[in-house]
């Protein structure tokens, strides 16, 4: 019948101490991981906050069950460990006890389910009327953002106003991708041939990291994006900037770059508004390329060195890249970099 007296007390105390220490350490590690740049646990939108409240509740329940089972496993292992002359209690079950512990999981599940269903009902329905609409389009392997009401098209950087609901229509041009900005919302998939929808209201200006969350092929890991939440005035200024057409440089290296852009065939895949020849739609719209913070599907910072690396051999940088290696000469790259950097 197990240890008794002091041995039993020591076994129980040791078990509880080990359990408490484990839970404490795990808690520290969880808090630490929640304070990271792409955290799933620092909601910065209203709907995100609602989901996170459920998440917090469920985390607490999970912690209680974890601690309970761990403590019982340890206590039973220590107290009922084999002893010389020990006898095992011969029992087949206990109906009252079994009914009781059927109700424990039932209770836990109900406590989880009610707020979960409330949040689902509140956040997965239609977006509010006054929402800003953005079409987020997944491509292998970059994100395109199209604001149909504003006439703006961009890629890899998504700009949003604070405190205004945004309706994101999710689409894909090829395979299934998933739109995930952990701090703003849970993920929703971008399914070809089937528009999905997601809405949230960002409540704090700032920069948030996003990444494709559905395995989408060779460069799934490199399919990333950023969301910039601005004050209303800043957002309007950004929109005005994006509405302008690109001026074709008149002279210098940049002007040669504009010609190179045509000669190297870039126009076949890329649009530059203001350049009548550049009307391609396979790759990202480059009208305001230089105003973006990231390039190559969000995988690299948009600076001269990375741009050179990209132009010199795209598939080497982003495996499987649909933009081929054009075998550009160093001079051609110089010209293209000069031109692309004028596209503010």
């Amino acid at each position: 019948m197990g240890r008794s007296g002091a041995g039993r007390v020591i076994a129980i105390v040791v078990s509880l101490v080990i359990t408490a220490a484990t839970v404490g350490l795990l808690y520290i590690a969880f808090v630490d991981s929640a304070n990271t740049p792409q955290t799933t646990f620092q909601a910065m939108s209203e709907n995100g906050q609602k989901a996170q409240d459920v998440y917090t509740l469920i985390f607490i329940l999970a912690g209680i069950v974890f601690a309970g089972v761990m403590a019982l496993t340890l206590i039973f292992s220590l107290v009922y460990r084999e002893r010389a002359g020990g006898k095992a209690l011969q029992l087949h079950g206990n109906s009252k006890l079994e009914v009781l512990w059927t109700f424990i999981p039932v209770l836990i599940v109900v406590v989880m389910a009610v707020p979960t269903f409330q949040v689902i009902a509140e956040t997965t329905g239609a977006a509010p009327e006054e929402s800003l609409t953005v079409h987020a389009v997944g491509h292998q392997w970059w994100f395109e953002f199209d604001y149909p009401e504003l006439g703006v098209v961009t890629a890899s950087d998504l700009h949003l106003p604070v405190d205004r609901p945004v309706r994101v229509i999710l689409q894909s041009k090829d395979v299934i991708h998933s739109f995930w900005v952990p701090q703003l919302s849970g993920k929703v998939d971008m399914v070809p041939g089937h528009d999905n929808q997601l809405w949230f209201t960002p409540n704090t200006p700032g920069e948030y990291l996003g990444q494709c969350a559905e395995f989408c092929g060779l460069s799934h890991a490199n399919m990333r994006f950023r969301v910039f939440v601005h004050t209303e005035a800043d957002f309007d200024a950004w929109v005005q900037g994006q509405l302008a057409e690109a001026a074709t440089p008149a002279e210098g290296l940049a002007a040669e770059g504009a010609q190179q852009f045509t000669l190297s065939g870039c126009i076949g895949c890329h649009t530059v508004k203001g350049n009548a020849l550049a009307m391609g739609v396979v790759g990202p719209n480059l009208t305001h390329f230089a105003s973006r913070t990231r390039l190559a599907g969000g995988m690299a910072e948009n600076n001269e060195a990375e741009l050179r690396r990209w132009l010199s051999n795209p598939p080497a940088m982003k495996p499987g890249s649909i933009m081929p290696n054009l075998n550009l000469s160093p001079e051609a790259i110089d010209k293209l970099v000069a031109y692309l950097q004028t596209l503010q």
Partner: protein
Amino acid sequence: MATAVGTLSHTEDRSRIWEWMTTVDHKKIAALYGVTGFIFFLIGGIEATLVRTQLAVPNGNVIDADLFNQLFTTHALTMIFLAIMPMGASFFNYLIPLQIGARDVAFPRLNALGYWTYLTGAVMLTSSFFLGGAPNGGWFAYAPLTSLEYAAGKNLDFYTVSLLILGVSSLMGSLNFAVTIINMRAPGMTMMRLPVYMWMTLVVSFLLILSLPIITVALVQLYFDRNFGTNFFTPDTGGDPILWQHIFWLFGHPEVYVLILPSMGIVSEVLPVMSRKPLFGYSAIVFAGAAIGVLGFAVWSHHMFTTGLGTVPQIVFSASTMAIGIPTGIKIFNWLGTMYGGNIRFTTATYFSVAFIFLFTIGGISGVMHASPAVDGQHQDSYFVVAHIHYVLFGGAIMGIFSGIFYWFPKMTGRFLNETSGKWTFWLLFVGMNLTFFPMHFLGLAGMPRRIYTYDEGLGWETWNLVATIGVYVIVVGVSVFIVNFFRTMRQPQTAGDNPWDAATLEWATSSPPPEHNFDVVPEVHDRDPLWYNRDHGIAPAAKPEHLHIHLPPPSYMPLIVAMGVALLGIGGLSHVAVAVLGMAVVVYGIWGWALEPTE
């Protein structure tokens, strides 16, 4: 051509290899399943080790994106279909006739065919690495990434063809197991006296019988899409990629229970014996297992919460998924109840079973967490889910399998695995798996998606990725210690005795290892724990009769021929239709010969 026991003339003039290739003895087939499954467990482990090595540090350069995608895909396929399921089939094969008091399974030749087709599918899937590239679309193979347009090579055809073959193998096995358990129980063994392990086997068999046809249809459709230009899953031509997900997970979720229920059964055998008391709440455990099996068919869309299901389906599938937490919780409490008041022998098997309770609970908790779509929006396709499945499949299924190996090894071989070495294995695996998989919860919380071959620094993912990779190497050491233990043990004399653990179930009523015919006299069952009943009531085992006239099915090479035909069919599916026609002819020849084979 019956093999009369005691006259070994038939076996003496056969070579050992021929004997193994034509055997229809469930114990030999179990050994084939077990050894092959373990070898593929090692292969799947090598794949995982490469994946983790690539992810040890940010922007790792060990393997490229393409190989990474092949490795994480085949790691899952290998562990699920080539390692855990066959190791489960090994225990099923070995234990079903012994635990229910039968001389063999209902269809011994079908049993052999099951093994040979499994081997065919397994070799075919793995050979793809050397024949142009392994499947690289994830084990779930979501359309349209798997269509010809986005996956041109043969990679995905290897996926469809080998999984079809493996499905046929499992289907034959499950039918055989279900028929055997239902029809061939010893006198007195009512359904509610079946060992819990047999109940879990029965539930698993029905899960497979019901779910394998579903994946078979999906695989045929995918094969047709890729090879004959049909349009089931391609959106450009009116197909629906979400259809694939529904069909796949309608199979895929029951499949998860196929992997975990056998280990739940093993733990339910080991804990009472080692605690020296009956299982706590037998009926509750049995009904909970059956309930998990039934509910397992009603939750598949929780894998699809992020696909735009809509509000009502999210709520419905969330509710059904949370409901599975209830029978699972009941099981956990009953295992703890079994330990309560015991006089527990802490053998290696006990360590693994007790660890199973704790580790499986962790996987269960995280499973119930992402039953809430609000939480799942963050968890889905993040490392949190990777942590979850590995707590269920490593902390659960694999820990259970190791417990079973240490527990039944004396019965199977007549030898005890070394206990000191066994405890080293246990602690290395326990520490290693927690080092590997617990940090993945933190990575998921920090927003790391799954299936990425690289990541940038500065996201707070460096430390835990490195820890996880170190953990894998600890697991590698633990498994190596086990392999050494195995080979050293096999050189020891057979001294285990019939019932070394003082266990309660029928397999311990015969010699270790058991004779080819299992029992000299089929035992009569009076209680749920028959050997304890006999012990406590002073019932002596029946005396061995002087003349044994036991007719066992003769060996047959027809299963091997049919399996070779299936292999040719598969190769034909990957190359030229002429090979498939030849394969079909061989299959027909094999079945013809099989039908006409004399049984006496």
